[in-house]
């Protein structure tokens, strides 16, 4: 490569696919690469975050990247003053988001250390009590979101309000509820990052220490030392397993196996022990069915609580397997023993001084690390589930009022355009005239839908412009698994070779038939014993992990959700292959080596 040619293209040279012209107008001005800033923007290295956002954003859904990445940054930059790292800049280009970490100028790093020690130190020292408080805050936030209600504007202001001298109409509640929903979402994402970066920092410290002690130690061995096996993230799946066992015990398993969810539940209700089982099912739903098959970042994510056929399908699967004498429960006692064995054996290979240091770092990592797993349930699943439910409710209401022809129309508007629509709705209601929206939005939404569909036909670039000599930004490494080496893999991808290289994320070697899955809706296509190949997986795909032999993903590092779940379920995994899901096709025989990170197409 010569000095003039950057390793990756400039965003300014990447045109939109045909039919997607004008996509920029779908997002706020600060989210797109502005023509006047080309010289500056081209100097920065941007990598695509298709791990969290694998599909082009509908305009409303862009709120997830805005709030999430803004809040990630605020903690580094303004709360804790993480010495070398500020936040992460982000842009949307051709529908995908690109990230660029902002480093602290070297001469300023030293000066931030005392403040970091004071502020972050307080969190590390008071972790359990602060975390207890976090749970209260997040719970209150969820409750407030649940309490929001979007109702059709009535024919008249209720007479009680008039006589009670309230002096306000029903649009007030409606617009305030919408603003409140957005504000609660904003809080959700601030809470998300309150502990997360610190959890990763403590892990990074342990990680660096272990690599210094044992340069060849597999990343996954260090990950296993801190992994908790009773994380709330695994509770939804565990609840289904318990329900399966209970169904067999109470003799209602047969009734559950056939018909729609409603039919099955009604059938159970007629049985002698049916009420008992139904009560257990209801208890499990709150909160554990606030669980998505997606990752919480899209308005289209399906949540169990609203799609009971999803957990019912998994439940039926578990019943069949349990009846066949299989152990469906996770072997947590064995996993705990294994974690202790691994920790002990590495420790034995250290000298006594290092052993003491190791104990300190491991101790802290084990206190803080469970948050890294647990938070996912409370934020991405539970909080986001409630948020999307409320937003779908609002979208449906406006659909019924004629603003758009489909229930999901609102998600083709930006969050600020929704405020305009609510004003339009309330305005005409107040004047007694006609809403403008119904004559404007249907065709505009149709146009936007066409743009999004066109954007979806073109995969993102892995990165833009030139990477730095070495990646030293700690959160890029931890959160996105991006290292100088992985970048080399993106460019060195020899598409003729039958070999793919990624991260050895979970150990073991297997051969089997590939099943390429591009969306959670395809999950039911997976057959027993296949190897799951996907651009990215979500932790909530857990129930299918009982069926598959191994996982291969395009995106993700050691601590990606796919890696965590695979280690938990004892399946080999290779993550971050770059383009495994487009190079491998369903039905091909492949070999997955989770020890070396190699994936070989055998056909």
């Amino acid at each position, binding site marked *: 490569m010569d000095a003039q040619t950057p390793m990756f293209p400039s965003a300014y040279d990447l045109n939109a696919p045909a039919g997607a012209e004008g996509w920029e107008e779908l997002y706020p001005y600060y989210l797109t690469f502005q023509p006047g800033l080309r010289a500056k923007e081209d100097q920065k290295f941007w990598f695509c975050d298709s791990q969290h956002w694998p599909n082009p954003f509908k305009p409303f859904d862009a709120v997830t990247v805005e709030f999430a990445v803004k809040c990630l940054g605020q903690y580094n930059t303004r709360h804790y003053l*993480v*010495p*070398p*790292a500020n936040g992460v800049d982000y842009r949307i280009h051709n529908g995908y988001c690109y990230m660029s970490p902002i480093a602290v100028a070297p001469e300023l*790093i030293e000066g931030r*250390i005392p403040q*970091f*020690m004071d502020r*972050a*130190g307080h969190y*590390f020292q008071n972790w359990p009590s602060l975390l207890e408080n976090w749970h209260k805050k997040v719970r209150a936030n969820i409750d407030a979101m649940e309490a929001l209600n979007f109702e059709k504007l009535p024919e008249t202001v209720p007479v009680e309000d008039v006589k009670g001298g309230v002096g306000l109409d029903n649009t007030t509640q409606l617009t305030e509820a919408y603003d409140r929903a957005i504000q609660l979402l904003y809080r959700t994402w601030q809470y998300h990052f309150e502990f997360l970066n610190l959890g990763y*920092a*403590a892990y*990074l*410290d342990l*990680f*660096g*220490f*272990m*690599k*210094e002690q*044992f*340069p*060849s*130690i*597999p*990343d*996954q*061995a260090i990950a296993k030392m801190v992994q908790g096996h009773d994380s709330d993230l695994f509770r939804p799946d565990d609840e289904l397993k318990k329900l399966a066992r209970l169904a067999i015990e109470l003799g209602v398993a047969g009734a559950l196996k056939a018909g729609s969810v409603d039919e099955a539940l009604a059938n159970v209700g007629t049985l002698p022990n049916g009420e008992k089982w139904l009560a257990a099912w209801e208890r499990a739903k709150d909160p554990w069915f606030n669980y998505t098959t997606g990752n919480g970042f899209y308005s289209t994510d399906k949540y169990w609580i609203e799609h009971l056929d999803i957990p019912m399908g998994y439940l039926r699967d578990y019943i069949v397997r349990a009846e066949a004498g299989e152990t469906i429960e996770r072997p947590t006692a064995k996993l705990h023993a294994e974690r202790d*064995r*691994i920790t002990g*054996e*590495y420790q034995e*290979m250290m*000298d006594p*001084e*290092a052993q003491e*240091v190791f104990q*300190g*770092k491991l101790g*802290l990592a084990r206190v803080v690390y469970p948050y890294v797993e647990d938070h996912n349930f409370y934020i991405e699943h539970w909080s986001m589930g409630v948020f999307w439910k409320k937003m779908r409710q609002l979208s449906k209401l406006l659909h019924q009022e004629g603003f758009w022809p489909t229930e999901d129309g609102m998600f083709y508007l930006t969050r600020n355009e929704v405020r305009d629509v609510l004003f339009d709705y309330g305005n005409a209601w107040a004047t007694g005239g006609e809403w403008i929206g119904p004559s404007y939005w249907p065709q505009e939404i149709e146009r936007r839908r066409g743009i999004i569909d066109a954007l979806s036909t073109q995969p993102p670039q892995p990165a833009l412009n030139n990477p730095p000599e*070495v*990646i*030293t930004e*700690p959160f890029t*490494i*931890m959160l996105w698994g991006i*290292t*100088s*080496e992985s970048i080399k893999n993106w460019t060195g991808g020899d598409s003729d070779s039958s070999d793919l290289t990624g*991260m*050895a994320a979970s*150990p*073991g*070697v297997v051969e089997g038939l590939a099943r390429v899955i591009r969306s959670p809706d395809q999950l039911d296509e997976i057959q027993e014993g296949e190897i799951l190949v996907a651009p990215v997986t979500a932790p909530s795909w857990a129930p299918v992990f009982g069926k598959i032999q191994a996982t291969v993903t395009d995106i993700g590092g050691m601590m990606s959700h796919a890696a965590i779940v695979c280690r938990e379920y004892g399946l080999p995994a290779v993550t971050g292959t770059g383009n495994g899901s487009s190079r491998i096709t369903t039905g091909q025989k492949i070999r997955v080596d989770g*020890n*070396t*990170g190699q994936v070989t197409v055998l056909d």
Partner: protein
Amino acid sequence: MSAYTLPFDRIGSGDHARVGGKCASLGEMTQAGVAVPPGFAVTTEAYVAFLDETGLRAEVEKQLERTDFDDVASLDRSAQAIQIRFRSHHLPEHVEQAIRADYEQMGADMPVAVRSSATAEDLPDASFAGQQDTYLWVVGSDDVVEHVRDCWASLFTARAMKYRHANTLGQIDVLMSVAVQKMVNARAAGVAMTLDPLNGDRTRIVIDASYGLGELVVSGIVTPDNYSVEKVLMEVVDRKISDKTVELIPDPAAASTVEREVTGDRRTAQCLSDAEILAVAQLAKRLEKQNGCPQDVEWALDADLPEGENLLALQSRPETVWSQKAKAKPKSAYATGLAGIVGALNNPIGAKSQ
């Protein structure tokens, strides 16, 4: 039982000097329940009796007096003369009886390996020992007795004499025990080190393996497959499959072994299954734990034993190269607590390479 032989399962910790390093290790392994081909040690007392009761000691000493250790020709002549003297004597009757009796105990016409177990073998640089004086597929007590004598004679190769002279070890004072061990019908065999010999990495177990008996691996005549196993996770992390051109296999008709060309796809196939690689690694790891230090283990897979019971340890000795190096101290003192976290954030060095 005489003092001249000692079955592996009776060798105690106090017997080290009498049975030599190799037999002592076989004894320890046997008693720790590690699968080892059965056998017995011919003790140094038997050797001393041979020297003293046949007049051999005086003959050797006389020859040594005439030897110019700096003159290659003189040294060669002396070595040959001494070896001829060794072979001109029968073993003392009671020594021979003891060997025959223990051999018969193993079963009629049991093929055995007869190997030296020198007491000098544990010297740091004694890597010459125990290599050339190994006799495989020996059958019948006459041949066993004869090869025990050959092992003793092998103390007086020119190379061994020169080595002892250079290291100011007494020539006739170095004693030798001999191991008589049931022959393994090895489908594959080799060596396992409980650290990476290239860099001393203790998290790895590195295995060399090839077809047939392990001698060709040890002597370097074939380039073996080379596997690397992560010691804690017990996962195969690297495998280099080589072209294994020959194998050493038993030749029962000749009561010996024969080198045979490996043909076809077998040459470049992985000679151990992954499960077998892990079994060898598990064995080596166990021996390291038992001995409390990194080990160099010779092992074989016996074709005559059922799967799951067919992996045998032939020898385990302390690794000497890396174990003697002082461990490099870390460049700076460890940063702990918050300072450690700041250090990790500022320089996430470990995270750069996978």
